């Protein structure tokens, strides 16, 4: 077990730079999730940690030791691949022990190790099957078994759940988390699924276009996004981002959301964020998560700054545990998350509670957070 340090990492493919100076540090036993849209560089970053791709500059350390330039097999890592990458011509047992076989470890020791891993993952009865005879979930387990048997300093997971169906994905997610809690090994995990990121990680690194957008705990990334991209990317349904004008109202800052010129009038909401003073009279982006925009009965009563406003409800989407209502704010669709039994209908004008303590603001030009 060891910590992982990535220092000013850059990676070029010819003239294109795909990783543009990444700095990440994760403690021993941490669970780092690299998340971002496809093409953001997260898989490349994982591959450079594995040593499957060379870095252009910067450094990667596992524990105190720099591993850049080391062959993948010498970095003391193990990797679980998206497609599982099980060797099709070998049995499960051979798959798990291939690395040991290459290293020349003798047979009895190999078999003991296989047995230990098989017990841990409950795949004992699969050991003599070929990968083609396994189900998706079983393949996933075998792939994890192949990684576990190495007993590495760091586990690397490359979108390991994306080939599973929805139900199995949730089960395996829990299982990976449980495994991490039990073994306490450092994990680096790549996904494009922000829910996976939030549920698994101790630290999340959000990437886009080769830049690290934000690095922090799941709560920090979710509640305190650094910029509009992170705000929009994390959370589902994603944060409502609405254009608003900063005003002075009774000596305090407030934001005004323009009406649609027809039924709905302008909405003015108080805003205490100090940084808004620098934008007085100008435009900002007002960000509010669907759960902070709800029916008055469902609102968080401990919130200090809950403002009710009447809004025209355009669409109602019951989703079992919640009901989502689509309204229009500042000319764009905004989603409110109501209680499941909220009495609300499309076409109706209903009061919605804005929890302004949860509101965040961004500079529309730089997309950076206004604090």
């Amino acid at each position, binding site marked *: 077990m060891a910590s992982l340090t990535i220092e000013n990492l850059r990676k070029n493919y010819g003239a294109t730079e795909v990783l543009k100076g990444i700095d990440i540090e994760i403690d021993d036993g941490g669970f780092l999730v690299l998340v971002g849209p496809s093409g953001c560089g997260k898989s490349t970053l994982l*591959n450079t940690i*594995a040593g*499957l791709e060379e870095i252009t500059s910067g450094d990667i350390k596992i524990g105190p030791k720099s591993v850049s330039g080391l*062959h*993948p*097999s*010498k970095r003391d*890592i*193990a*990797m679980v*691949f*998206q*497609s599982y*990458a*099980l*060797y*099709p*011509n070998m049995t499960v047992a051979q798959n798990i022990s*291939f*690395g040991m076989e*290459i*290293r020349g470890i003798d047979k009895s020791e190999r078999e003991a190790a296989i047995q230990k891993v098989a017990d841990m993952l409950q795949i004992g009865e699969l050991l003599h099957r070929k990968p083609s005879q396994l189900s998706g979930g079983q393949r996933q387990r075998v792939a994890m078994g*192949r990684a576990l048997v190495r007993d590495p300093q760091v586990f690397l997971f490359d979108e390991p759940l994306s080939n599973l169906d929805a139900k199995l994905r949730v089960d395996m997610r829990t299982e990976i988390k449980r495994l991490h809690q039990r073994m306490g090994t450092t994990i680096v995990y790549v996904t494009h699924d922000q829910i996976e990121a939030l549920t698994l990680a101790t630290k999340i690194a959000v990437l886009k276009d080769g830049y690290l957008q934000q690095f922090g705990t799941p709560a920090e990334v979710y509640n305190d996004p650094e910029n509009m991209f992170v705000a929009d990317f994390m959370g589902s349904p994603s944060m409502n981002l609405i254009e608003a004008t900063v005003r002075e109202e009774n000596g305090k800052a407030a934001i005004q959301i323009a009406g649609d010129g027809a039924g709905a009038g302008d909405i003015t909401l108080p805003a205490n964020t100090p940084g808004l003073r620098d934008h007085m009279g100008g435009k900002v982006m007002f960000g509010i998560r669907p759960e902070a925009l709800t029916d008055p009965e469902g609102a968080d009563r401990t919130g200090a700054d809950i403002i009710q406003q009447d809004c025209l409800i355009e669409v109602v989407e019951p989703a079992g545990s919640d009901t989502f209502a689509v309204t229009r704010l500042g000319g764009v669709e905004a989603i409110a998350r109501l209680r499941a039994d909220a009495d609300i209908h499309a076409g109706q004008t209903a009061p919605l509670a804005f929890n302004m303590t949860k509101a965040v603001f961004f500079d529309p030009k730089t997309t950076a957070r206004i604090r």
Partner: protein
Amino acid sequence: MSAPSQDNAVKGSIITRAIIYVVLILFVIYYLLPLYVMLVNSVKPLEEIRSGNMMEFPKVWTLEPWRAAWSYAQIGVEPSGLRPYFINSILMVVPAVLLSTILGALNGYVLTKWQFKGHGIVFGLLLLSCFIPFQIVLIPMARVLGFLGISGTIPGLVLVHLIYGIGFTTLFFRNYYAAFPTELVRAAQIDGAGFFQIFWRILLPSSAPIAVVTIIWQFTNVWNDFLFGASFSDFDSVPMTVALNNLVSSSTGVKEYNVHFAGAILAALPTLIVYIVSGRYFVRGLMAGAVKG
């Protein structure tokens, strides 16, 4: 060709379907006719061919033409039959096919899983080499074979077929390995396997289908080649196709059609057997050779 039949079928009356079947059967006859003619007339006495009808069954059955074609027909100056040339072809085909297949497999592996700067150009040049008219290399090749001291020998022919087969074998394996998951190679790297270990332990065990396609393709091409055989062989290294042509087009003496037909079937037999035994792979090779990229 194992694609499931789907419902493109034209729905028509019984008469339409009858016409379709009749046309299909007419073409079956068209394609089988030359083979039928060869077979029937290879077991007839010569006299019967000259005075009789080519389409009819023999009145007198004889295997003499086959015996002649195989062991004592006049080929060039030697009354040796086709047997020594059949053996020449075997001696030429086996090493040429095996070597070019092995090289093709390694090349395909490198070009897909160990790409380096310029791999595209290397592959492009190998691929383009499949399509040159071989006339363009005849003159310099004759000189190089002479220089190497192997002109007119079977090793010389092996070398020629090896070189001009590499392009196709590389193409086959490259396209096959391109679809082989790169993650498997990466997993093996993390497991500590080296270049040859990955090839030997991970890729090769899954390569049987493409190896069969490649071997069949190369076997057919090399066996059926005439141009290189005619250009670069000598009395004791003449391959089967060239010998057959010598037999058929020799201008001296009586034209022994029945012997010619028996000889032609003998020359066609190896590739025909391969086709009958593994037609599926043969077709796949043809397709792979036609649809590149």
